[in-house]
């Protein structure tokens, strides 16, 4: 059905006929006008099929007018900019747009998957659960891939998204969701009180469906009233209007998220630098929910054929876009509102008749329709639809409420159907955060009841379906909201204009229209179009015992599609109600979950992608490392230089070179990431005695001491060197990764446990750039750097420090060593760091100084048997386990973890203890983490007695070395133990002291 002139000769309040546009739909060039949606333009071109359904691959067309659309899901854009699963009714047209239909192969009109429809008697509710259970392995390798290919909707793009996205935060006194007549009126009333009002609306044009609403407000139309209020709001300084923005979720404490489509409708906006989408994170004082109502489809046989549309959507197509749904139609309704559609069609010159399930429709609109010569068939339903890719004819059957089968019927030719089963208040946002609802018999729907948040539903969202009621309610709710956030808010003093609107007859619920013959076989009554769930599926679930509505939902997938049951929920409950004889309130509702409509992953990520994905910390020397070609290693959020391969070198070669430079000459390490914390106060020394396992109150001013920290459980948590700057003043060093955690740990003890201590703790990590100059030539390098202090071994021995200057650089120099060599850690203010680094390299040049990275550092310390907290410890390791019993004070009355060390299992035998390992073959390097076993067997399980914690090829010793935690390790010196590896190889290693190099420590003190 293409090529027919469905665009009416005139009309269309949204389109600008002077601005024709052209775009591509499934490769075909389609013409439209500025203001069209993809849906309206494609329909105008005569095409009705927009896609194939999820499970049965049935042809589907447009059903709705806006965000409630569940059928016409399309993909827009090409390549990396392709976005699948968008609602064609919401996509605003621009020149050159490329759009495609989805879930069809090879084409829309002929689809191989449609064979599922012919086989549908084999696809009942719960089909997947029943069928693919066996054989088990088939699920992963056969069933799932095939199902995923055949089902599903659009395809995700494969390339990186080239657009930008961002977040925006705002607090607003009053947030109004929905820009229809309720939202506009309430926003103006709230704004008159002087508070800040944020109005959110998902459409490009404010007004909601005022243009599709009958009646007069004041002297003009409802749409005219809406436009006037919208214009006044736009001029108010305290009102922010977000159009094309969907409130997607409502959360605790009136937190709301809204998804703004900034640039989707106009590529020139994107080109100018705008983010494609913006995610708003909103904190609201009071929320006015004016989200309107959604029209219900009716469950009749084959109610999913293209050309069967909601009555409001037909009206919208005619009034907004000047598009006729066909030439000869049937309006099928159970309420008066759909008569407006019949009247609009008649006025547009489209032939139409009304089928009304009610026995005596008699409202004003019904009268008007009859007076206009429209044929009305009361007590009737559509019992059958003929046609596959479109509607060819229907059968109209006599109907009486409660009657389950067709007695008489007549065939009527037609090419479209407009259906209306009544209106459901859009309750989703009301319910996201626990709002209660109640069933309203008049509406045959749920409406808001109570809520614990400051939120008020108004207008159609509150079930108030008349203009007069809506305006009155909106005005008072707007004033009240302003008052509730600001008691001094002025009253709006607005006088509502007089409203005239047609009186309405009562609606009569119809949950199922009986069909000719057995239903579900070629006669499907669709409830959830997007997930292809029929009335028969729901009844089957009942018969099979899935009685709870939540079970029915999961068994049949009803309401679980991307539309979250907007149009299907209540119809499904109605079917269940009739199937079980329970009332709808007794059946209950399923949970409404955010989002209201799907929003993009890009908007969720916001700007935090690529270089902003994770904050990366660099030291003052970072650029030098980069220029030098350093390989970087992550240490927390820091990037530290791991090694510096020069041209032609691999990492192994550069690490070896760096290590030998430190052992034989002198090396320079950027240690700026070390945690640094100043601790001062009359109780500082006693405080440190409690934090560390060893004694600090005895430390002399000018001296350094290595300390161990445990947690309350007695397990090692950090280590480092602390120095005494003055009697009451210390500088603590922590591990690089522990800097923030230990500062918080100190504060926590001071603020929550030992509040009587007078101690201040100030983290100063980033104030200082700090470098280790290590190696036998370290002192010679230092002395060339113009120190104003005596650097001789006597005046400046190991574990002491100096504060002074080196040339123009203010410095703190600590003689401490993590390499086992003569070593000075030089700290200077960070902004002078790079200058001093360069100066040290220049001064060291004649001694062959080399920068070394963190891997060389780790090998150097392992050669000396120094532990790294986190390598040699795993959160269950005590100081005694790692052989540092000597650092656990016997004299101190108390310190953190002391009591825990007395527990039997920490004192007991067979603890894993730190030992060194030498492999039988010196070229064998044990894998990190390799397990030692008591006895090697052909295959696991084997009893494990410990694991490797650090393992390296030591260039200094010319052989491999390792450290390990081994059961009773210290008692096993000299014993050889086995490490079965993957692939069957077994490495053997002899247990030795973990100190492999310079055991008497002569080099440190040299």
């Amino acid at each position, binding site marked *: 059905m293409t090529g027919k002139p469905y665009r009416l000769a005139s009309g269309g309040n949204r389109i600008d006929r002077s601005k024709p546009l052209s775009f591509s739909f499934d490769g075909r060039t389609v013409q439209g006008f500025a203001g069209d949606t993809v849906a309206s333009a494609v329909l105008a071109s005569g095409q009705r099929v927009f896609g194939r359904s999820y499970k049965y691959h049935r042809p589907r067309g447009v059903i709705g007018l806006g965000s409630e659309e569940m059928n016409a899901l399309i993909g827009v854009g090409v390549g990396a900019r392709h976005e699948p699963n968008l609602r064609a009714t919401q996509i605003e047209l621009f020149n050159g747009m490329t759009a495609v239909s989805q879930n069809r192969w090879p084409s829309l009109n002929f689809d191989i998957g449609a064979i599922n429809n012919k086989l549908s008697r084999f696809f009942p509710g719960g089909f997947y659960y029943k069928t693919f259970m066996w054989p088990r392995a088939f699920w992963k390798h056969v069933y799932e891939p095939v199902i995923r290919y055949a089902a599903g909707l659009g395809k995700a793009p494969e390339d990186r998204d080239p657009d930008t996205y961002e977040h*925006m935060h705002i607090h607003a006194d009053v947030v109004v969701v929905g820009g229809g007549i309720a939202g506009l009126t309430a926003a103006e009333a709230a704004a008159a009180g002087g508070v800040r009002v944020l109005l959110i609306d998902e459409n490009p044009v404010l007004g909601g469906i005022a243009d599709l609403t009958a009646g007069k407000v004041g002297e003009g139309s409802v749409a005219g009233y809406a436009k006037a209020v919208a214009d006044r709001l736009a001029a108010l300084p305290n009102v922010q209007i977000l159009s094309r923005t969907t409130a997607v979720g409502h959360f605790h404490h009136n937190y709301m998220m809204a998804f703004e489509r900034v640039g989707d409708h106009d590529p020139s906006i994107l080109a100018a630098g705008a983010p494609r989408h913006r995610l708003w994170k909103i904190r609201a004082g009071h929320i006015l929910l004016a989200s309107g109502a959604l029209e219900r489809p009716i469950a009749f046989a084959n109610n999913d054929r293209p050309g069967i549309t909601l009555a409001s959507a037909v009206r919208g197509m005619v009034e907004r876009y000047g598009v006729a749904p066909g030439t000869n139609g049937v309006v099928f309704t159970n309420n008066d509102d759909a008569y407006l559609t019949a009247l609009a069609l008649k006025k547009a010159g489209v032939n139409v008749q009304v089928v009304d399930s009610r026995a005596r429709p008699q409202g004003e609109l019904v009268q008007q329709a009859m007076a206009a010569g429209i044929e009305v068939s009361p007590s009737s339903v559509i019992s059958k639809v003929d046609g596959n890719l479109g509607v060819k004819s229907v059968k109209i059957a006599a109907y009486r409420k409660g009657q389950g089968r067709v007695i008489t019927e007549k065939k009527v030719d037609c090419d479209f159907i407009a259906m209306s089963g009544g209106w459901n208040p859009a309750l989703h946002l009301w319910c996201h955060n626990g709002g209660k609802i109640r069933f309203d018999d008049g509406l045959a729907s749920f409406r808001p009841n109570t809520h614990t948040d400051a939120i008020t539903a108004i207008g159609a969202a509150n079930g108030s379906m008349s203009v007069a009621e809506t305006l009155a309610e909106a005005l008072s709710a707007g004033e009240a909201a302003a008052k509730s956030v600001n008691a001094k808010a002025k009253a709006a003093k607005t006088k509502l204009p007089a409203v005239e609107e047609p009186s309405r007859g009562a609606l009569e619920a119809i949950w199922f229209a009986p069909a000719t013959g057995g239903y579900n076989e070629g006669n499907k009554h669709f409830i959830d179009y997007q997930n292809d769930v029929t009335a028969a599926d729901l009844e089957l679930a009942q018969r099979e015992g899935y009685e709870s509505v939540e079970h029915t939902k999961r068994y049949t997938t009803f309401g679980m599609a991307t539309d979250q049951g907007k149009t299907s929920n209540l119809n499904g409950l109605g079917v269940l109600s009739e199937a079980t004889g329970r009332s709808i309130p007794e059946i209950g509702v399923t949970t409404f979950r955010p989002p209201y409509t799907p929003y993009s992953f890009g908007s969720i990520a916001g700007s935090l992608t690529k270089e902003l994905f994770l904050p990366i910390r660099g030291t003052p020397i970072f650029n030098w490392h980069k220029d030098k070609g350093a390989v970087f290693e992550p240490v927390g959020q820091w990037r530290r230089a791991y090694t510096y391969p020069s041209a032609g070198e691999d990492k192994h070669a550069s690490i070896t070179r760096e290590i030998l430079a430190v052992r034989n000459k002198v090396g320079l390490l950027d240690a700026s990431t070390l945690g640094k914390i100043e601790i001062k106060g009359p109780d500082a020394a006693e405080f440190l005695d409690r934090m560390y396992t060893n004694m600090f109150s005895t430390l002399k001013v000018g001296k350094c001491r290595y300390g161990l920290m445990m947690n309350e459980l007695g397990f090692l948590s950090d280590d480092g060197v602390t120095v005494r700057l003055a009697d009451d003043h210390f500088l603590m060093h922590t591990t690089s990764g522990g800097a923030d955690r230990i500062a918080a740990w100190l504060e926590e003890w001071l603020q929550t446990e030992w509040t009587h201590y007078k101690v201040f703790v100030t983290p100063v990590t980033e104030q200082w750039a700090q470098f280790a100059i290590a190696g036998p030539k370290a002192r010679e390098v230092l002395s060339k750097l113009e120190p104003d202090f005596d650097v001789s071994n006597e005046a400046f021995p190991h574990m002491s420090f100096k504060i002074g200057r080196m040339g*123009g650089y203010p410095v703190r120099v600590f003689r401490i060593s993590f390499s086992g060599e003569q070593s000075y850690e030089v700290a200077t203010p960070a902004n002078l760091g790079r200058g001093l680094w360069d100066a040290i390299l220049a001064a060291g040049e004649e001694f062959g100084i080399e920068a070394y990275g963190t891997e060389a550092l780790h090998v150097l310390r392992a050669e000396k048997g120094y532990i790294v907290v986190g390598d040699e410890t795993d959160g269950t390791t005590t100081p005694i386990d790692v052989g540092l019993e000597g650092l656990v004070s016997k004299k101190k009355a108390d310190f953190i973890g002391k009591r825990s060390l007395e527990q039997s299992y920490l004192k007991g035998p067979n603890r894993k203890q730190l030992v060194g390992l030498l492999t039988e073959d010196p070229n064998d390097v044990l894998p990190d983490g390799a397990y030692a076993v008591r006895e090697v067997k052909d295959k696991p399980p084997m009893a494990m007695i410990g694991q490797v914690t650090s393992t390296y090829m030591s260039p200094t010793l010319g052989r491999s070395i390792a450290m390990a935690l081994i059961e009773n390790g210290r008692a096993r010196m000299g014993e050889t133990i086995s490490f079965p590896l993957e692939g069957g190889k077994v490495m053997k290693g002899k247990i030795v002291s973990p100190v492999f190099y310079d055991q008497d420590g002569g080099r440190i003190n040299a």
Partner: protein
Amino acid sequence: MLEARFESPLASLAAPTDTYVSMREIAERGMIDLRGSAGDRKFMAAAKSALGVDLPKQPRTTATWGDVRVFWLSPDQWLITCPRAKAQEMADQLSKDLAGIHSLAVNVSDMRAIIRLEGEGVREVVMKGSAIDLTHGDYPPGTVRRMRFAEIAALLHVVEDNVIDIYVFRSFAQYTWDFLRKAARKGSEVRVFPKAG
């Protein structure tokens, strides 16, 4: 003589031209972290004599005397800003005047990077990374507060209506700069409550 060479955290970056508010690093400012109890009268008096101004006691406020500005950070912590050249001398003076009084003054001039944002829209640029609402009347010039900004901790100082300084730890300078550059990109203006006073 070995001359000290100064290099600020963002020294290698040029001011961008593609943003709708201007961005630049402030490198010439010195900073001192001062700890002490606001309830200790001796401490408060000694601090005033060293700084020339009372330490602010009200949360989120600042106090100014000449080129010295004091930020309230918590009931027992203040950040003092002054010209960089004066910072060490002032920290030493504070330590001297506070001798015998429980306190801790540390020169932390190099610990943070400062980025100045200037122009129409600075407040909304910050709001793209922080949940605080700077368009609210709670944030007049002189306001200081710490905040979570993008994925990190930052300190915010509203200098004037359209001038904001953001302080972050030095190692996050590049990250902060990159985030702000993206947030302030021309074309991404939000104009939140544009007509509000």
